[in-house]
Structure formats: C-alpha cells, structure tokens
C-alpha cells in the first residue's frame, strides 16, 4: 500500500471522530502544514520516475481534495452548531412595538378631485384652472348674468372692493370664460377648484369646492350631456346601475338648463346610491347659452355644447359617508386620520378609483 493511501485512510478515520475546531486545525497542520504529511508528498513528486509520476500525482491530488473537503465541511458544521447555540440566547420579544412611523393622509376632497379627474380623463377631458379672485365680468356678466339680474341673489358674493368689481369666485364657471377666451374650439375641459359664498351654517360653508365641465364642439347636444353625466355618476359611485333624473331648471349661462337628481335609499342608516325611490339633487347643467358663446367670440351658429357644475364636497360626503360639511375644513386631527386617504392610493382607471 502506498504511503498516500495509508495517510488518507488513517486521517479519514481520525476526522470521522467527534472533534472540536482546534483538533481539526491540528490535523490540518499535520497534513497540509509546510512540512505536513501531504505537503511533503508533493515535494517527492520530482523524485518519482516519469512513468509512475502521473499515477502518483493523481492519487496524491485525490487524497488531498478528499481530506481538505472533509476538513472544510467539518469546520462549517461546527461553526453552524456554534451559531445555533449562540442564537438560543439571542431571542427578542417580537411583539414589542415596531420603530414608530408616521402615516400621512390625503384629504377626502383632494382624493375625490383626483377620482373625478381620473374619470373624466378616460373620456377625453383635460383639467383647467382659474384664479380664486375673479373680476365681476368673468364671474357674472360674461356668464349672461348682467348687473342687477335677480340670479345674482342666489350667489352671496364676497367682494374685495367697494365698487364690487373684484370678488372671490362664486362658482367655477368663470374658468369656462377664461378657457374659451384663451383658445379656439373645440373645448373639452373640467375645472375643479375652490369657490366662495358668504353663507355659513350647518349645511353651507363660506368656502367649498366645485368642478366645472365644458364640452363645446360642432354637434354636441343634450344627449351627449346626459351620456357624459350618466357615465360620470356611475363611475364615481362605482355602481353598475344608476337612477338619474334630469329636471328643467334655470341658470343664466345655460339654455336649456337642468338639475340632475340621483336615486337613493337609506338602508341601516346608510345612503345607498343608485337604488330606492328618493331623489337627491347633485348637480346643475345645461347647453351653454348662445350669449355666453358670443361673449367669448365663439360663433353659436357653428359651435354648441354643454356645461355642468358639481359640488365636490357633497360628492365626497355621499360616497364616503361623511355627515358634516363643516368638518371638512376644521382640520381635526382625528377626523383627518379617519377620513383621509393613504397617499399611495392614487385613484386610477385600471386599479379602480377606491379600494
């Protein structure tokens, strides 16, 4: 039996015993140290006759690999065992509170504005804006509501000057005027924003939010208006069916004008939209008055279309079961936490408007 085989067998046997790391390292030195048993065999290599050398070398390498592998795996085994032993003592109570993190929230009005924008975006509306401070012309006169028109009484207006020429806009409709004056038809826009009326009680706030809609093209008629609003309401309330009623009404800037009611019922104290035999008024709309088109240099003989205005706060209340309008603007931390939305909940058409 060659020396190599002898060494291999002997040390494989030794290594099979239960050894600690020191013992294994000792063996490692004995075998692979500078003058170790295996190392010294390699030095012999040169002395071996050429015809035997190949065989010798292969036997030697084989023995070396086998022994080395065993030593490495033995050491790993022991280390793992030691880690396991150590871990036994490293237990924490994972039921302790996590490192605190802050949760931000998006206000329900902002969330609903994003929902509305997402819905109208699908059917080709883009978003326009206008200033909160308006002149009397854009807010009233251009909208076919001249001075001393009784319809002005319906808007309790905040004024910024004694001459009553500058005011806080009472509706988002002046954005119609600005948009049409700045561009050429066709127009297909929505304009969400803050609006103001000097009216304050349980159901009225001096500031609230509206979204204006305007679609002007060559052949837009009341059927399109009905279709657009029906689509919006269905999408917004995320229901399959909606009961909707168009009712004649009057706004100076539309002719014909309509108010829109949606059907609802109250089940277990909650409003269910789309069912039942009760009606709830949710918006005003109509075909843009020819005088309004003339005021913005659009030829009413060539172009026509519809406009609508919706109270955003009311929509938010209906959809999310919020009872008190005034609470929207009270900034109560508890309220904001309860009714606010996680900022990563961005309403979108493919993910759905709400969770």
């Amino acid at each position, binding site marked *: 039996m060659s020396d190599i085989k002898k060494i291999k067998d002997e040390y494989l046997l030794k290594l099979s015993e239960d050894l600690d790391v020191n013992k294994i390292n000792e063996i490692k030195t004995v075998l692979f140290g500078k003058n170790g048993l295996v190392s010294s065999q390699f030095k012999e290599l040169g002395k071996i006759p050429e015809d035997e050398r190949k065989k010798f070398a292969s036997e030697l390498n084989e023995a070396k690999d086998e022994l080395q592998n065993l030593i490495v795996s033995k050491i790993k085994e022991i280390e793992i065992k030691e880690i396991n032993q150590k871990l036994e003592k490293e237990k924490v109570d994972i039921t302790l*509170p996590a*490192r*605190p993190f*802050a*949760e*931000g929230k*998006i*206000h329900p009005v*902002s969330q609903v504005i*994003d929902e509305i*924008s997402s819905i109208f975006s*699908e*059917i*080709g509306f*883009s*978003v326009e804006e*206008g*200033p*909160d*401070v308006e002149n009397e012309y*854009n807010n009233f006169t251009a909208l076919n509501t001249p001075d*001393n028109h*009784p319809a002005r*009484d319906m808007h309790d207006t*905040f004024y*910024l*000057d004694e001459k*009553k020429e*500058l005011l*806080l806009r009472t509706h988002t409709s002046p954005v119609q005027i600005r948009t049409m004056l700045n561009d050429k038809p066709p127009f*297909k826009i929505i304009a969400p924003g*803050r609006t*103001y009326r*000097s*009216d304050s009680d349980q159901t009225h706030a001096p*500031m609230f939010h509206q979204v204006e809609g305007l679609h002007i093209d060559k*052949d837009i*008629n*009341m*059927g*399109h208006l*009905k*279709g657009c609003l029906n689509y919006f309401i269905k999408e917004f309330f995320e229901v399959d069916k909606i009961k909707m*009623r*168009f*009712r*004649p*009404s*009057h706004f100076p800037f539309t002719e*014909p004008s309509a108010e829109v009611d949606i059907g609802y019922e109250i089940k277990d104290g909650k409003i269910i939209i789309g069912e039942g035999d009760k009606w709830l008024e949710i918006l005003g709309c109509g*075909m843009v*008055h*020819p005088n309004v088109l003339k005021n913005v240099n659009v030829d009413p003989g060539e172009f*026509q279309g519809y406009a609508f205005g919706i109270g955003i706060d009311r929509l938010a209340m209906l959809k999310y079961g919020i009872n008190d309008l005034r609470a929207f*603007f009270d*900034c*109560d*931390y*508890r309220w904001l936490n309860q009714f606010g939305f996680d900022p*990563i909940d961005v309403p979108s058409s493919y993910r759905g408007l709400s969770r």
Partner: protein
Amino acid sequence: MKITSDWLKEHLDTKLDENQIIEKLTDVGLEVESVEKQGGELDDFIVAKILKAEKHPNADKLRVCDVDIGKENPVKVVCGAPNAKEGLFTIYAPPGSVIPKNQMKLVVSKIRGVSSYGMLCSESELNLSDESDGITELSSHDFKNKIGDNYFPKKNSNVIDISITPNRADCLGVRGIARDLAAAGSGKLKDFKENELKKDGKQKVSVKIENEDNQACTIFGSCLITGVKNIESPDWLKEKIISIGQKPISAIVDITNYVMFDLNRPLHAYDVDKIDKGIIVRNSKKNETFTALDNKEYKLDDGMCVISDASGVLGLGGIIGGTRSGTEYDTKNVLIESAYFLPRSIRKSSKILNIDTDAKFRFERGIDPLSIEQGLKKASNLIQEICGGKVSEFDIQNIEKYENKSLEFNPSMFEKITGIKIEKNEMMKILNDLGFVIEENKKNLQLKIPTWRPDISLEADVVEELIRIKGYEHIELIEPQKIRQKETLNKKQKLFHFLQRAIASKGYLEAITWSFTDSKINQLFIEKNKEIKIVNPISSDLDVLRSSIFSNLIIHLNKNLDRGFKDLSIFEIGPTFLGKKPGEQLTVVGGLKSGKIFRQSWLEKERLVDVFDVKSDVIKSLVEAGYDKENLYFDIETPSYYHPGKSGRVFLNKGKEKVVAYFGDIHPNVLKKLDIKIEALAGFEIFLDNIKQPKKSLKDQKTKHKFSDYQKSERDFAFILDKNFQVQELIEIISNVDKNLIQSVKVFDVYEGKNIPEDKKSIALNVTIQSSEKTLNEDDLNKINQTIITAVESKLDAKIRS
C-alpha cells in the same frame, strides 16, 4: 311661491290628485321644495284672553298673567311683553308646542321662581309679521266668542312650496303655474272669467308720470273707488291669505295681495283722502325721506322711482308703500294702482335700501306689462263686492307702449340642441298652450312671445320651453367616447399632485382651510405683502385673504394641540394671495411639524422636532418630484416668522433664480404671540410657481445614465474651519476638485469644543472616489487626497486636522 291645490284648481281643470300634480310641477321645472300640512304645527295655537296681569314678585319687567284658554281653570303664564294687560285677546302657545320662528319647543318652566305654563306669542314668533315688540293683539269684537279655539284654521289641503327660478316671473302667480301644468297635459287652463264691472265716472285723482331720464315707471293705471267700507276680510279670503303663509290685514289690503298671488299682478291701494292734490311719479331727490309700511323711515338717493304727491313721497314705486297714504279700517275712498316698473330700477333701489317685498320680488323679475287692466278689474270687482263703493273708469298713463315681441323659430333647432325629434304639430300645440301666437312661415314658425314671458328672446329659449314641457326624460343618452386628444394634466398640475402626495407620504395629514383668515394672525406672516381685505367678511376673524398657508394652518395646529395632541404633522396645498387682482396668487405647499420624534419610544431616544426634519421632508419631496439633490442650493435668508438662526431657503441651483422653499423652526415669538405651547415647532413652505419645470421629461433623463464598475475607494478628512462657515461650500469645493472622480461627499461629524479653538469647528467628511476608466492605485488616490486638502486650505481659512 306657496300654493294649495284648491287654489290651483280655480285655474286648472284637472283630474290629477295632489301627488301627481306635485310630480308634474317638478317635471316641468317648477321644483317642489316642500309639501306641508296646512296648519300642522300651528294647530296648537289657541285664542286666549288675559284675565289678570300682575307684576312679577321678583322682576320689574315681567308680569304674571291668568289666561283664559277656554278650559275650566285659567293657566298662569309669565310674560315680558309691555302690552300684556287685563282683558287683552291674544294667542296662547301651550307647553309642548313648537314656536314657528325659532322652532323652540315649549316646556313648563320656572321664571324667576314663578312657574309659567306656556307662552303668549308675538306676531313675529308666529311668523305672521315682523312685529316683535309685544304679544299679538286680537280684536275683542272678532274673538270674544272664540276663546279656546285654534287661531289658525284647520285645513285638509297641503301647502305646496315651489322654488321658482328667477326666469319664471310668470309663475309667481297661481294662474301661471296652472298654465304650465295645462301645457304639460295635466289638465285644461280654465278661461279667465271676470264679472262685468260697472264703472261710474272718471278717475278724478290726477296722475302724472314725469317723463324724465331713467323714469322707471312706464305705465301707471289706476281707478278710484269711492264710498267703501273697509272691513275684515270674509273667511274665504282670510283663509286663502293664511293658507299661503300671509297675514290677513283688512279687506282692501287682502284683496290687493290676493290678486298679486293669483295673477302675479301687484297692486297698491291708497287712501285717497290722504293724498295731497294728485299723484306724481318721478325720480327721488337725494335725502328725501318717507316712512314705509314696514314702519321704517327710509332716506332716498337720487333717481329712485317714487310715487309722490304735493307734500312729498308716498311710496317707492313697485317696492313698498308709505304709511302716510295707507288704507285703514276707516278709509272711505281708495285709489288702486296697477303699474309697470322697469326690473332693473326696482332691483337697484331695493338693493341700496335693503328692502325685500313680494311686489319688489315680482317687479324685478318682470311683470306682464299688459296685465294692468286685468288687475284693476279683478281688484275693483272684489272690493265692490266686499266693501261696496263706486268704481271709476280706469285711468292709464304711460310713457311707453308694450306689445308682443316676435321671434322666428326654425323647428330643426330643437333636434340640433336636444338630439331628439318631435313633430311640428306637437311643437305648435305646446307653444300655443304656453300662450305663444304662432304663424307658419314656410319651414319656420313665426312666434309672438307672450308678454308675461320676459325671459324668452332666443331660439334656444323656445327649445327649452319645448323640451321642458315634452319632458327631459325623452332625451336619449349618447354614451361618451373614450378618446383622449390632449393630456389630462399639464406639467404644473402634475407637480401639484406629485408634491401633494409626496408631502403626505412623509407622514403629514392634509388639511384644507379657508382662503381667508384673521387679519391679526395674518399680520404675523404677511412680511412685505399687501393686506387684502374682504369688504363683506362673514365674521371679523375671517376678514382678509391669507398671505401664507401658515395663517390658518397654525391656528388649526394649535386647536389640535388643545385637543391633547403633541406630535403633529399637517400640511395644506393651496393658494396664498399677493394682491386683489385675478391671478395675483401663488400655489404653496405649507407644512407644520410639532413636538418630538420617537416620543416615549422603548426603542429610540426621543428628541425634539427640528429644522433638519423639515429640511429632509422638503428635499426628499423635491427629489421625488424629479429635481437633482446635488444641485439644490441653500442660504439663510428667511421670512421673519422663522427662527433666524435655524431656518433656510432652497434654490434649485446655485444661480438662486427663485426661492423654491423655506424651511426651519418657527420663530419662538410667533408661538408666544399665538399662545402656542409645544416643545418644538418647525415648518416649511414650497412655492410651486417658482419651481422651474425640468426641460427634459424623465424618460429622456434616464437614457443618459452611466455607472462605473471599477473599484471605489473612500477617504476620511477632518477640517478645522471658522464656526460660521457653511458646510455647503466646503462640499462644493471638494466636489469640484475632480467631478469625474469624486462621487460623493458625506459629512459624518460636526464638532465644536475641547481641542478646537473657540471660534472654530471641526467638520469630518467621507469622500468616495471612483474612476470610470480604471481602478485607481495608491498613487492616484494620494494625489487626489493632496489636491483636496490643498484646495480646501487655499480657498478657505481651513486646516486639515491631524
């Protein structure tokens, strides 16, 4: 406008029941606001007589009354009215009843030690009039046999309250409503029947309309009725007046009101014997005064339309009459006025004087100018029937003639606007029922517009009439197309939404507060901006437009602190105002963070919120919005409401074009002034209008990205430099040593104190060096080290710390 179905049926022959009528009203655009049982809560109010009224033992101004309410024993009522006297007939409200004016439910209560069972009511409390000075006084003659009876007659029919839109003046009379219903197929409009009136002689009171500029009265019709006996109205008339929520006064006044509500034809009755010579309709002169029927004295402006006589103003035409010529029970001769006033002028005068009357409400919307004689006839007939007397011929003065306006209507307009078709015959039937006179003219319809419809002047108006009567439910829905030709949001709008959610994701709750605020608090944040006052604020603490988001947000933060919260983060995104012209506003995100971080945490050491918390929130949000952190540039000039030593402002780059944001601790004096008690408060403001939109979109920026796979090395440095020196510049100098090699510079220690001179500080930095071309060897690295040290030491008064 209140009506009852009984009254309606005087004009409308219909088989519909009340519910069907109500539904139809809403369908044609006459929205029914409420339907209330007539009487209803008013059933509780009882005619009573004060038997005895004694001074309250513990109060000078109160009386204790024994009141006969028709029961066996009188009840004791404590009353504060000065007119609560023995023998007075009045109206008694028992415990449990609800006072119409304030909806207060009465209970038995002790008033200064004396129990009071119910209450004696003033007219104002019962919504009968504005009279609130004392309790209602009923005439003993009429009510002596009615003690214990209900004051308000019990009725079975309901009061239907209709909200009439401002364009429908014609529906401010019952007949107009009936006409609409008839057109909509709900019955037949009854013919207008009026008994022939026997007229005796000329109208002897002279009437003159001054033909001057801006004369608002264009027609003044009148008739004289002599030898009348003004009495209380008969029951049928009183009930009518009460049924629609009005208070009966006397036959003559009730008749004029009745005609107004019935035909939408306002009238006015004068006691002729109180008119000095004749009537002159003219413009008022400045500072003329008169006492109106509401018992208030009005001082007039120039150019208001007044009805006057030789002694002065009798009344404001179309708005309100005066007391001087008012009719009373002893009036013998009356002049009935039936006139036309221009809506614009009525509205202007009544706005200036702040008067609202039923007549004014009607004239400003536009009365039928051709209804003058109809009104005179109906009123004279009734007065003659109830009060007797002789009626004169009608005297009609006018300075303008009115006739039907005409309009050519192309029937194809209907389909163009509504999207649906109806037959020409159906159109003609509807228009005819609404009072239009139609002539067919080839394809078009030549329409004569009824004079009671001042709202109709365009083809679109006619389309509305047709579709309104036809029914909006017939409009066929056209599904919207899902085509988008323009991006939904522009870049600024996208930035708005992005920053809104970026800030919220840093743990801030979004608030929405008013755009106006308290000028006293706004002063703290106004800096050099103009104060923008609201002329008519809803309250004195909401009197200016806000100059900063903080003006409101800090108030609400404080309210939440009062609720017991300490560690708050709130923000708002919205407008702040620089001037009172449209567009002089900015869009700002403002946030406030208070209290501590890791308060009472078992895991982390708690600490106060500070400037670097908000700085991080600002930077991170800007980075998320697509701006390069490395380019942001900071300095220390901030508004006075920030802590002068712990606040800064941010620019998108060293060019310092526009301030993108402020951040910092809020000035302790601001907290003191607002009485805010919290350990720490920091805030930030980001100005969206100042954030330049990146020229390149994100997809273009990303294609340029390069990275190196060669080994990187890190070197630490510590420099001792001037205490006031800003680290921003140090980092800049080091970065500029070799922009290709120096990948990042981290500050890992700032030290002042032992071993460092008093006016100095030590800044320790970690610099990452990496080449994109090769692995750097020791020599290369040493060279860079040396260049860094030389650059810093030569440019700044700094020393490398050994």
